[in-house]
């Protein structure tokens, strides 16, 4: 579904992302790990178009999207969450999700209809909120949410867009232990049988191991390995560069 071919991003002489080749099949769940600063977030930025790659191509369903702006890529079914939560702080939680639903359904450029009257949008938004367990916070302003709640809202925004390829950037960071299983369930349900694909960066190894079909390891911008969890975890370089000694 999603492929990158020699994706590279250089600042001056330094390659932040270095010739990355990735293939994501429909229904696949690919975990991305790597030390801090390996270039994982940068890779996401290149794929979604927030940054322009210095070299290389990105294709989505066989279509070259390398030169499209972020919103066009999103419309082709590419969705993402952000490492540092970026929600619409002055809108209520519910409005946040409704906006995402509406963006997905098109028809946002309607100047004379009452947005609140669109029951389908409202229903879809509430469903998404329900799935991440934020329904009770629907009227709170998103800017005042606690950290973990913002993470959930991020996922709800993603869900609302029903993307076919989803990029999750550390969805578990800062989520309290109690809520992790629930969120893992939500994320697991993202792929399901629908043929959607997920690319997820995460430092919580147990979550990655639980969810991922394959794991890609990034190091200094390059793809060190991309294989089954077992093989990757057994890789001595990964052990040394990423996992270190156990606590």
């Amino acid at each position, binding site marked *: 579904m999603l492929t990158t071919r020699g994706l590279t991003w250089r600042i001056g002489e330094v390659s932040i992302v270095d010739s990355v080749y990735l293939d994501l099949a429909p229904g696949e769940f690919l975990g991305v790990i790597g030390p801090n600063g390996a270039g994982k977030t940068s890779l996401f930025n290149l794929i979604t178009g927030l940054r322009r790659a210095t070299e290389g191509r990105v294709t989505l369903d066989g279509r070259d999207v390398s030169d499209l702006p972020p919103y066009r890529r999103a419309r082709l079914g590419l969705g993402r969450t952000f490492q540092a939560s970026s*929600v*619409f702080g002055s809108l209520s939680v519910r409005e946040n999700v409704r906006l995402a639903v509406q963006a997905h359904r098109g028809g946002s450029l309607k100047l004379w209809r009452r947005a609140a009257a669109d029951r389908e949008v409202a229903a879809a938004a509430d469903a998404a909120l329900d799935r991440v367990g934020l329904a009770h916070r629907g009227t709170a302003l998103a800017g005042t949410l606690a950290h973990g709640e913002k993470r959930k809202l991020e996922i709800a925004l993603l869900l609302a867009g029903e993307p076919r390829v989803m990029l999750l950037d550390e969805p578990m960071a800062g989520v309290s232990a109690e809520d992790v299983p629930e969120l893992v369930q939500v994320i697991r349900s993202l792929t399901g049988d629908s043929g959607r694909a997920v690319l997820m960066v995460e430092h919580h190894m147990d979550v990655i191991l639980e969810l991922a079909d394959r794991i890609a390891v990034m190091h200094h911008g390059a793809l060190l390995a991309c294989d089954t969890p077992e093989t990757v975890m057994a890789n001595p370089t990964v052990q040394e560069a990423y996992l270190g000694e156990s606590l």
Partner: protein
Amino acid sequence: MTEVKSPEVPAPPAAVPDELTEQPGRWSRLRPFLPLVALAVALILPYSTLHLPGIFEGALNSPGTLQLLAVCLVFGGLAAGYDLLFGRTGMLSFGHALYFAAGVYGTDILITRVGLPLWQAAPLAIVGGTILAGLLGAVALRTVGIAFAMVTLAFAQVGAILVARDFGGLTGGEEGLPLDVSGLPDGLVGVTNTVNLYWLALAYLVVVVLVVHRVSGSPTGRVLAGLRDDERRIGVLGLDPYRFKLVAFTLAGGLAAAGGVVYCLIVGGASPHITSSELTLSLLVMVVLGGPGTRWGPVLGGILYMYLDHRLVSFGTSDAVNALPAFLSRPLSQPLFVLGTVFILAVYFFPGGLASLAPRLALLRDSLRPGTRRQG
């Protein structure tokens, strides 16, 4: 800090944005009808011979009062339109005066210099102003933030220079261009017909308020609110930020141009005052005075600002002020001094604008009521 026991009050539900909740109570049940009440008052006003000494010079239905009210209403509408950019989309434009001026000068030139009848000149001026806003917006929106503010300022400045230079002998330069009324409908000419100008201004205000409310409650309005918070996010959701901003910019420009048409008729001409960046700044002041992004704030702010702007002139020369010692009467006789000071005080004491006054008053009332005492 002193040690105070926190009262055992159960935590209320999380904060809820104003427009989304209906709090029970007499006040809030009345609230939806307040605009209607205001409209009714506005409709009755020209039939009233009431004197409000100190507030208006003459009776409510005297031409002077109606003229003043008409100007205030136009600016109420103008501020509401500007709020579509500033308060609702988060775009800080310093060049909004340009589109207003396009409406004023467009109408004036088309009528006075070209000789078109009003019914042709007015739509042409509005369409022209809208197109101008669309074109310049398309360029300016390639920048964001302060850069955007400055590019719009630059465009407006070019407009101001062209007007002041009397470009092509069309604008009358710094002396302005009186409107040739010979081709206008009789109902819009002469002091005795000031009331018709008032109706026109009221209609303009109602239209703008309607448009702004509809648009900000529409799907597009939701996107605009999202843009205000995080533009990058909007892009990732699959919406083109540029396109929506351009829509808002063009729409606001068109509304301003329409205001210009009405203003041109009310004042009976155009003068270069209205091209200055100060006008945009005062629009900003009006919106903030009223409460950006709120339903009625900008309208109230615009009306109040213009009212003060006009009335302070006579306040400054009133006997009450002249009787004061020189160190007081001298500054007070400068309208801008009073306006500036009032404005600064407003920023301090009504953060969130006039619109935030009602909830604050409600809070005050609650805290005075025994039983639900709140500290702080």
